[in-house]
């Protein structure tokens, strides 16, 4: 029971990671593959934030009632900082991915993976 309570979050996050990888491997539409990559990225961010939790600890904002010498009263703030920038960078690179998809559609008039490979073999 202790083992389950200590590890259940990791198993859910690994399932979400496999859902994201499943779309890239098995779906034919390129836009769906980009959505799958976005789900993959969100699961990684959830994993980092889930590792940083401590029992009976409070949010990482300094409070006079919780002395700062006992660091087990505050949640670890370092993974939060790294994931904050990762979310905004993820949105910017999602914009770049959609720009590439729009240019592919302008030139080939299709977003299907198998049809695209056949069109590109003709060149």
């Amino acid at each position, binding site marked *: 029971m202790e083992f389950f309570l200590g590890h259940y979050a990791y198993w859910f996050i690994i399932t979400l990671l496999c859902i994201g990888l499943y779309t890239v491997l098995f779906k034919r539409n390129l836009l769906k593959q980009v959505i799958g990559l976005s789900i993959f990225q969100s699961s990684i961010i959830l994993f980092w934030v889930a590792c940083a939790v401590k029992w009976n600890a409070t949010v990482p*904002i300094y409070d006079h009632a919780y002395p700062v010498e006992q660091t087990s009263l505050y949640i670890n703030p370092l993974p939060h900082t790294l994931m*904050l*920038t990762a*979310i*905004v960078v993820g*949105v*910017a690179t999602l*914009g770049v991915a*959609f*720009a590439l998809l*729009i240019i592919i559609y302008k030139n080939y008039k299709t977003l299907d993976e198998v049809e695209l490979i056949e069109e590109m073999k003709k060149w």
Partner: protein
Amino acid sequence: MKERDESPIVLIVSRALSPFIMLFGAYVIAHGHYSPGGGFQGGSMLAASILLIRLAVGSRISELHFKRSWGTPLGVAGVSIFFGVGLVAMILGGELLNYDYFFIPGVTGPMLRSLSILIIEIGVGLAVMGILVSIYDDLLEEDERREDL
């Protein structure tokens, strides 16, 4: 997204809400020291307030609100503010982004670091806002030759 939306409810509510969202975004940037917030969150809210007007009113009319050519220069200005603080600290004697060597008249010690963090958060907020609006405008760019001639 190109023309104005026909429903009057969408037009009135979005035009009434957008300045308050912009004000709340500026508040979130300035209160990053005392509550959850900071540069990235506030910059995204500022971008959201501008994108709301672009969705509701159409691309041509919202040029009067925020021109399409302002997005990328704002992004570059935000990164320049961040980098400029670091260069001033380097010129005045320390390493890049070492706030103990930064110059604000009249403040030293921990207050100097607190104010330098505020300047950097403003730079980050402007950069995120400019780039997110610029990416939206680029994705929606279209051949406008037929409309102009």
